[in-house]
C-alpha cells in the first residue's frame, strides 16, 4: 500500500509539472503577443503607417505622428518592457506557488 501511494504521488507530481509548464509557456506567449501588438502599433503604426493621418492632430508644438516617430514610440517601448517584467514576475510567483 505504502509503495502504491508513493508511486501515485510522484506520478501525479510529474503530470502536474508537465501541465504546469505547458500552462506557464502558454501564459508567457500570451503576454508576449499582446505586448508585441502594442509595440507594432506605437512604432510601425503610429510612427509610420498612420503617421501622416496623425500629423493632422496637434500636441502642443508637435504634429502627433511626428511626435510618435521621434519621442512617443520610445516612451511606449520603455513602458512595455516595464509591464512585461511585472507580468512575468507575477507569473513566476504564481507558478512557484502552484508547484509547492
Amino acid at each position: 500500500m505504502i509503495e502504491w501511494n508513493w508511486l501515485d504521488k510522484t506520478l501525479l507530481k510529474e503530470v502536474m509539472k508537465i501541465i504546469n509548464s505547458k500552462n506557464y509557456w502558454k501564459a508567457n506567449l500570451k503576454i508576449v503577443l499582446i505586448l508585441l501588438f502594442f509595440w507594432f502599433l506605437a512604432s510601425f503604426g503610429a510612427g509610420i503607417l498612420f503617421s501622416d493621418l496623425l500629423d493632422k492632430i496637434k500636441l502642443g508644438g508637435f504634429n502627433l505622428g511626428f511626435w510618435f516617430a521621434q519621442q512617443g514610440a520610445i516612451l511606449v517601448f520603455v513602458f512595455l518592457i516595464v509591464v512585461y517584467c511585472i507580468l512575468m514576475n507575477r507569473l513566476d510567483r504564481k507558478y512557484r506557488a502552484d508547484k509547492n
Partner: protein
Amino acid sequence: MDLQILTYLMAGASFALYIGIAIWSKASSTNEFYVAGGGVHPVANGMATAADWMSAASFISMAGIISFMGKDGSVYLMGWTGGYVLLALLLAPYLRKFGKFTVPDFIGDRYYSKLARFVAVLCLIFVSFTYIAGQMRGVGIVFSRFLEVDINTGVIIGMAIVFIYAVLGGMKGITYTQVAQYCVLIFAYMVPAIFISILITGNPIPQLGFGSKIISEDIYLLDKLNNVLNDLGFNNYTDSTKSKIDVFCITGALMAGTAGLPHVIVRFFTVPKVRDARASAGWALLFIAILYTTAPAVSSFSRLNFINTINNSSYESTPVWFKNWEDIGLISWSDKNKDGIIQYAPGNSLNPVKPIFSDQRGINGERIVSNELTKNKNEIYIDRDIMVLANPEIANLPNWVIALVASGALAAALSTAAGLLLVISSSISHDLMKKIFRPSITDKQELFLARLSAAIAIGVAGVFGIYPPAFVAQVVAFAFGLAASSIFPALIMGIFSKRVNSSGAIIGMVSGLLFTSSYIIFFKFISPDLNFSDNWFLGISPEGIGVVGMVINFTFAMVISFFTKSPPEHIIKLIDNIRAPE
C-alpha cells in the same frame, strides 16, 4: 581656462578612472573574462548595456543625421530602441536561462552542429569588425579636433586604453568601466542639450523644449524651423519624403538587427537570474531612452541655430568654430556668386559631395576646393558628424561644456569598441578553439587565448582607425542587415520552435546572409550609380533589405526542417528547459 587644457584634464581624468576600475576588477577565470562571473546587478548591467550599445554613431552622428533628415531620421530613433523590446520579450530571458558564454554557444548547442556554430562565428566577426571601424573613426575625429593631436596618435592612445581594460579585465573590467562611461556620456550629452533648450525655448527639459514656443516669439520651435527651411527652399522638417515601404523596412531591419547584435546579447549572460535579465533589458532601454529622446530635440535646435548663425552672414564674421571645423576639413564654403556672403540652400554644393581641399586660400580666407561646383545656390558643405560636437560652440556655451562633450564622445566610442572586442575575442578563443578545433585546452590556456585574441583584435581595429576604409558609412547598413538576416532568426527559431533542425537553421542563415550581402554589395559597391528607388526590389533600399533577408531565412529554415528529421530528444529537453521558469 584654455579649451585645450580643459579637454586634456577632463579626458585624462576619465581615462584614469577607467584604468583604475580595470585594475580593481581584473578577471581571473574564463567565466569572469566572458561573462563577468555572472554576478552583475541588473541596474549596473542596464547602464553597461546602454554604454555598450550607444556608440560614437549614437553620440556623435545620430542627432546630426536627423538634423538634416527631419522626420525621415525617425527610422534610427525607433529602430535602435524598438529592438530592445524584441530583445527583452523574445531573447534575453531565454538565452540567460540557457546560460553559457557566447551567442554561437547557443546556436551551436541548439542546432547540435559545429557547422552552425562556425557560421554564427563568421556572422559575428563580420558584424563586429564593421562596427569597430566606426568607433575608431569617432575617436580619431574627437582627438584631432579637441586635443589637436594627429588622428593616428589619437587612435593609438584610444587603443592603449581599451587594451588595458579589455585585455586585463575581460567582461568584468568592461562591465564596470562601461557603468562609469555611461555616467560620463549621458552627463556630457544632457548638459549642452539643457543649456541650448533654455537658450532657445526657456524650457530646461529638452524633450519638452522640442515642442515649445521660441523664447520671446509667439511661434512653436518646429513651426519656426519649417518656415525657415521653406524660405530657403527645403521641405518641411516635420514631413516625411521617403516611401512608406522603405521607412517600414529600414526600421524593421534596424530593430531586428539591434536584437541580433552579439555584443548586446552577451551582456544578458552576465546577470545572476532570468528575472534579472528581463529587468536589465528594461533598465538598459530606460538609460538609452534618456539620450534617444534628447537627440531629436538637439537635432531641431542645432539645425535652427546653424541656419541662423551661418546663412547670409559674411565669411569674415563667422565664429571661430566654423573656421576650426573648416581647417579639419569637415566644413567647406565655396563662394559661388562672389559676394563674400554664405548662402545655404537645398542640394549638394560640390561634386563629388565631399570636399577635396587644395592648399590655397580664397580672397576671403576660405579653403579652396578642387571639386566641381554644382549649379544650385548652396555654398556650404557640412559633415553631419560635427553637429553634436559643434553644437555647444554654435550656441556659445562655456569651454568646460565643450570639453565635457569631447570626453563623452570618447566614452561612447571606447565603451562600444571594448564590448565589440570582447565578443570577437571570446568567439575566437571559446567557439573556434575550445569548441571546434582544440577541445582539449585547459581553462587557463583558454583564458590566455582569449587575452591574446583580444589583443590581436585591438590591433586590427587600430589599423581600421589609422587607415579608415573609405566605405565605413556604407558598411553600417551591412552590420544591421546581416545581424537581422542571419543571427536574429536563428535565435528566435531556436527558442520558439521545436521543429527547426540543424540543416534548416544552417541553410536559413546562409541564404539570408547571401541574399542580404549580395543585395548590399551590388548597390553599394558594384553599381552605386543604380542605387535609387526605381531599381530597388519592391522599392526597398539596401539599408532596409535585411527585413527581406530575414523573411528568406525564416522561410527556408522552416520549409527544409519540415521535410527533414526532427531534432533529437535531448534538444527537445533543452528547449523545454529554457522555456521553463527558474
